[in-house]
């Protein structure tokens, strides 16, 4: 097991270095000036020259890359050109918001998608199954920005039930501030004993979570359904039925368990997919997370920030995949004996 973990960690390091090199080359070789983001609208030629010198853009590209990697290994991802703040500090501050949004969305998507997929598989080719398939197809086809704006119009514009954007209301930000201990507003507001802030955080989560979860519910439901149909058609399930085992026990104890390993892979991939998808959702809802940060960085040629976000997302994605692989061994101990 240790050898496996070490091997995978080595592979992760190699992949990260590759991602780093590729992103660095793309950001430096494509035409575009990063100094405008740094200096404002109308810099002078002297200011541009000074900024290029300060950013090390006058050095050979391999030297720039080596300096970047050296600093990155020491936890310094540079300063954002757009905000002037250290990239690592900005990402750390924003990571909680994205993590909270994506994780809750995934839990909601799994909570709805897995049972729905199971019921759909059990009722294969019957009315309920057709209905679920039609709805999930629509869920997959509709883009997040459309769903998000539709939900905003319905629940904010028409009904006035839920907030339109942001992570906390004005009043909470002003009158019930709390320290970001974990970066998760729900947790931090409770730790600070601020129920009003907790309520506000919860209310602000509803629409972005619904938007992000909806497309994921469709993916989880359809995959669970397909896996369950395969599992329910297996020889040993037929044997259990012949022995007269209760149908619910067959479905939940045996069929669902057989789907766990492929389902874990899907969940791992989905988390990465949702992190990417959160870029759109965070933009629509002004969610102060990594997605909105990435968008701002891209449109303003903020190379250090683009690099930082890329490295962070790649690391998260690779870590999740490693954890998923390790979970296989917990779910099916036979894998460890091979």
């Amino acid at each position, binding site marked *: 097991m240790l050898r496996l973990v070490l091997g995978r960690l080595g592979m992760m390091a190699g992949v990260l270095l590759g991602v780093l090199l590729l992103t660095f080359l793309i950001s430096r070789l494509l035409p*575009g*000036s990063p100094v405008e983001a740094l200096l*404002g609208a109308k810099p002078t030629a002297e200011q541009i020259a000074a900024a290029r010198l300060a950013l090390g853009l006058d050095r050979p590209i391999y030297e720039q890359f080596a300096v970047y990697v050296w600093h990155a290994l020491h936890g310094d991802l540079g300063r954002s050109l757009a905000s002037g703040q250290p990239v690592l500090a900005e990402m750390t501050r924003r990571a909680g918001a994205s993590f909270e949004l994506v994780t809750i969305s995934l839990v909601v998507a799994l909570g709805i998608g897995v049972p729905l997929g199971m019921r759909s598989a059990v009722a294969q080719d019957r009315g309920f199954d057709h209905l679920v398939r039609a709805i999930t197809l629509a869920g997959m086809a509709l883009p997040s920005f459309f769903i998000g704006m539709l939900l905003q119009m319905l629940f904010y*514009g028409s009904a006035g039930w839920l907030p339109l*954007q942001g992570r906390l209301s004005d009043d909470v930000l002003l009158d019930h501030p709390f320290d970001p201990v974990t970066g998760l507003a729900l947790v931090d507001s409770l730790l600070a004993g601020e129920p009003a802030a907790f309520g506000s955080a919860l*209310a602000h989560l509803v629409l972005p979570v619904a938007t992000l979860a909806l497309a994921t519910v469709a993916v989880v439901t359809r995959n669970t359904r397909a896996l369950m149909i395969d599992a329910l058609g297996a020889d040993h399930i037929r044997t259990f039925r012949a022995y007269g085992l209760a149908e619910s026990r067959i479905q939940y104890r045996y069929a669902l368990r057989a789907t766990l390993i492929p389902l874990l892979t899907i969940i791992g991939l989905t988390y990465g997919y949702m992190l990417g998808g959160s870029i759109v959702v965070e933009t629509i809802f002004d969610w102060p997370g990594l997605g909105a940060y990435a968008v701002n960085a891209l449109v303003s*040629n903020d190379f250090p920030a683009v690099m930082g976000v890329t490295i962070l997302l790649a690391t998260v994605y690779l870590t999740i995949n490693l954890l998923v692989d390790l979970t296989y061994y917990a779910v099916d101990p036979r894998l460890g004996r091979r």
Partner: protein
Amino acid sequence: MRERLLVLFSALLLVATPAGATGRTVVQAGAGDIKDWDPAIAFSLEVPMLVNVYEPLLWYNPPGSAEPFTPALATSWSSSEGGTVWTFKLRPGVRFHDGTPLTADAAKRSLERTIALKQGAFYIWDPVAAIEAPDDGTLVIRTTRPAPIDLIASSQYGAYIYSLAAAAQGTDWFNQGHDAGTGPYRVRQWDRGQQTVLERFPDYWGGWQDRNFSRVILKTVLESATQIQLLRTGDADIVAPVPADAILGLTRNPKIRVAQAPSWNNTQFLINTAKPPTDNLAFRQALSHLWDYNTVAETVYAGSAEPAAGPIPRSMWGHDDTIETPRFDPALARQLLDQSGIPAEARHLTLAYIGADEEYKNAALLFQQNAARLGITVELLPGPWGTIWDKAKKLETAPNLQSMTWWPTYATPSDWLVGLFRTEQPTLFNLSHYSNPAFDAVVNEGVALEGSDRPAAIAKYGEAQQILMADAPAIFAADLRTRVGYRADIQGLEANPAYAAVFYYRLWRSAATE
């Protein structure tokens, strides 16, 4: 159980409802967050906030006012020795937000710090030779050449006076969301990427009336559609700028007004004068007659622009009213095209514009169609500004035409003439790669006269504009208007093209809703 759920849901709704835009609080929604808090450096989207926190020596008045300036931190001023010595008498009894008094020495050291940092718009003070504070209430600025220090001192960039006691803590201190101004509002809170909250400064020299807003919330809202939704529901009082295509819908809402006023932002499509086929004068003139000025202003900008009359907006002093502007005239364009001698197979152009800008895109598409009717192929190259700018600076990668919206750093027409069209080596913003020694000479004379003999400077700038119209280094497309959407109960909104900002101190909410 059901009752408990109902109570919980009701509580959720209560805390969810934004309570900002009421009573003595005014809420503005906009796309920009603060980049630089340091008033010496700020040169970006934070400026609309800064004008409410900091003050310059003078405010520049909107065009048409009886006087060109309103006293701010200086109550009177005069120039002598041919515009090389400027004396400002400072307003007594002014305090910075940190409690220290405004003195001439504080103002002197504040300006000296701005100049020494060499960041942002420090270069507007380029003519300054020395700053002196002979007594607590007198500030003297000496220049190396006649210079319009009154105009420079009223700039929205790099001209703020701030407490050096606070500034001594450095730019990083400012960038934590601190301020050191004298303005009516001080910064209470900054939640990065979410909102900035300003609160009234009780010791403001201008005093306070009951109707003034005591709190200002500036919400960062990236999507313009979301900003509009907030305005419609009243969760935001002000949205600026509103997208052109939203104006009509908003004006139908009786609870919303859209204020439009001339701005000093204008749009041109710079024509590369050094690259074939646009290095040919007749060909460039033909292009200027293929631009459908009225349709662009009325349709593309939904009436929030007017066809430009040359490089300088009509509302800026020094604009030459006698200019003959090209009109949309395909027949004349065809004649000029024939005169140009450019063969049909060489009538191919590249046109770069900022892809995220709908107005640029639609104007470029219209131009592409009109040009195609005369056999000119226009290849559209949308992209981000950084890429466009980088390519346009080098002749080998520069397009034939490219979009450019320009505004002055301080209230001077020379900003357009020098910044966009004076010979430049290496190229920075003269992306037409235009070089005309006669034009350069006239502009330089105008700049030299601006501080000592403004009517003579205006005459020189007029000559320069005539030269530009003859040489056609750009399609002068549109003078843009400000577009501020606001709730009907907000009163006191005044447009001033010199400041891309809303002055919250001058606003109040009408009594009916207080």
